[in-house]
């Protein structure tokens, strides 16, 4: 039985996160390397889209991550609101910038894929518009925090905004079904997939790379946030990295 409650305090989570970061970072780097080799050279050129389709190897994983990270951020925010736990609020705070970054990558790569494939960089299509709103929600959460001086009040305000904004995630996900606009439906489904196996493998490997990268960088950021918010505590002063 893992003593979860023990790791819910910033002082004990800080060293644990520090030990986990290299594992996730290396896993992300190795998987990204394999995924890039598959995506950029091993996977055959698409007979309809040519090599432009290779953009999906970063587009789809980053779009998945952008939605998933938002839900995780809202989840930690809800925990912070419900149980008044500091570490969960810090986790939510640490996720927002990486979520915004994944959303930006999804929009940017989608735009560069759309131009050769659909003939336009941008359209006010349901999927694209709701993904753009996701970016604004992330930026809104970040801006809201910087507008409130007292960290615990900022935690609560950001948690409320994150939870309310979570309604946008199912809207993004189902947008291709609900509205028949430009963006096509999913090519990946459990059991039956419309993609060649090697393409699917490349995309899944890149998705795991994005996952592990996000975990590693969020843990790096949450450690920094712990130092920022717990400075003055005895355990922070006693850290070896404080001596340098």
């Amino acid at each position, binding site marked *: 039985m893992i003593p979860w409650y023990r790791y819910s305090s910033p002082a004990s989570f800080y060293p644990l996160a520090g030990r986990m970061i290299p594992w996730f970072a290396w896993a992300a780097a190795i998987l990204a390397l394999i995924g890039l080799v598959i995506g950029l050279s091993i996977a055959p050129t698409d007979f309809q889209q040519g090599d432009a389709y290779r953009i999906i190897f970063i587009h789809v994983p980053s779009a998945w991550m952008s939605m998933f990270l938002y839900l995780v951020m809202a989840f930690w925010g809800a925990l912070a609101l419900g149980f008044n736990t500091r570490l969960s609020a810090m986790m939510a705070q640490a996720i927002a910038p990486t979520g915004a970054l994944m959303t930006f990558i999804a929009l940017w*790569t989608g735009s560069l894929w759309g131009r050769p494939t659909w003939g336009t960089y941008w359209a006010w299509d349901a999927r694209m518009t709701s993904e753009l709103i996701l970016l604004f929600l992330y930026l809104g959460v970040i801006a809201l925090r910087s507008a409130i001086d007292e960290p615990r009040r900022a935690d609560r305000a950001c948690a409320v905004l994150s939870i309310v904004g979570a309604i946008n995630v199912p809207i993004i996900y189902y947008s291709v079904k609900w509205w028949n606009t430009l963006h096509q439906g999913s090519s990946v489904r459990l059991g039956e997939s419309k993609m060649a196996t090697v393409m699917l493998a490349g995309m899944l490997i890149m998705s795991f790379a994005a996952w592990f990268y996000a975990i590693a960088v969020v843990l790096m950021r949450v450690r920094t946030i712990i130092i920022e918010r717990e400075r003055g505590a005895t355990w922070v002063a006693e850290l070896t990295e404080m001596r340098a």
Partner: protein
Amino acid sequence: MIDFLAMGGYAFYVWGAYGVTALVIVAEILAVRARRKMALSEARLEPAEVMR
């Protein structure tokens, strides 16, 4: 190699997507590292409290 870089005529789109993605990921890592250094040096200025 030239063929690989040409990406079947889609070099601008493919490398534009991969290049910017790589750039923002490197920028994020550097930003987090800089923030950590800053947080540590600010924490060093703060006297430790006995009770917390």
